[in-house]
């Protein structure tokens, strides 16, 4: 029976596989797979964890740090969402800090939709009550918030681009709502 093992390595089935849509004002696409961890730690571990991750963990609300496809988003006073678009082993990275922390793999829990275009903010405001003007939500700003009846995490990666993270089972709802709102953002 041993020959069965690994004969066919299980393949990944991505949520929203192949999804793209939106409008000329706000184009929607699904982000590539990434590794993600929910990182929790106390203030005394921030410096060592920053060193281990190769970026400065943000300690101010609504801010993020990015470096070489790796993003650390402030979600709460002891909570960060760390995303690595190069799919590096983030659990191992933070373990090397040797400081007290909690890291839980949520790479498959979340998925992300990229909203890009002059109407990107308007499209997201179709369901998100936050002020997404550049003054209130500049490039690099991030926040856990709501999109109508779903929870999302927003990260502004450029003036006209947002990364919208949500739990995988909410992704059809989030993408459908964003598609409707993106259409309307063009009007």
């Amino acid at each position, binding site marked *: 029976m041993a020959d069965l093992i690994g004969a066919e390595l299980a393949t990944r089935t991505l949520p929203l596989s192949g999804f793209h849509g939106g409008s000329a004002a706000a184009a929607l696409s699904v982000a590539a797979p990434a590794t993600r961890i929910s990182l929790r730690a106390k203030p005394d571990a921030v410096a060592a964890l920053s060193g281990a991750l190769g970026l400065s963990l943000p300690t101010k609300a609504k801010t993020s740090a990015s470096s070489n496809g790796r993003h650390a988003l402030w979600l709460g006073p002891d909570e960060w969402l760390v995303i690595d678009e190069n799919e590096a082993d983030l659990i191992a990275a933070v373990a090397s800090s040797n400081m007290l922390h909690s890291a839980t793999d949520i790479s498959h829990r979340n998925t992300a939709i990229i909203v890009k275009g002059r109407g990107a903010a308007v499209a997201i405001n179709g369901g998100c*009550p936050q002020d997404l003007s550049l003054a209130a939500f500049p490039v690099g700003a991030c926040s856990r918030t*709501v999109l109508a009846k779903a929870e999302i995490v927003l990260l502004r990666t450029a003036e006209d681009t947002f990364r919208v993270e949500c739990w995988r089972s909410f992704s059809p709802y989030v993408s459908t709502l964003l598609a409707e709102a993106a259409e309307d953002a063009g009007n």
Partner: protein
Amino acid sequence: MLLIYCPYCEEERSELEFRQAGDAHIARPTNMTEMTDEDFEAFFFLRDNVKGLTFERWRHLNGCGRFFNAARDTVSDKFLTTYKAGLPRPDLSTLRPATEATVETYEATESNAK
């Protein structure tokens, strides 16, 4: 829809991101097993349901996730202040009364706010 100032995020956010979580400043006793029935009743079941100033807990559920405390007027539905969990009740004499009939003109509102 209210705006609520989250003391952890340090800004006002839409009520949609928050959940109310009952009365504040009710500490869970450390001697649970030694409590009398009357003490347990007072701790767990009895609440005042005040008309006016109330201290209550909120959670920034779809935000930073933190529980925090708020002083709110149940008549005007206005928040007087919010503060981090674990902090004592704030000195309310330093806070502006939140009744509706406090100003007579808009200009007075402006000068009060500054």
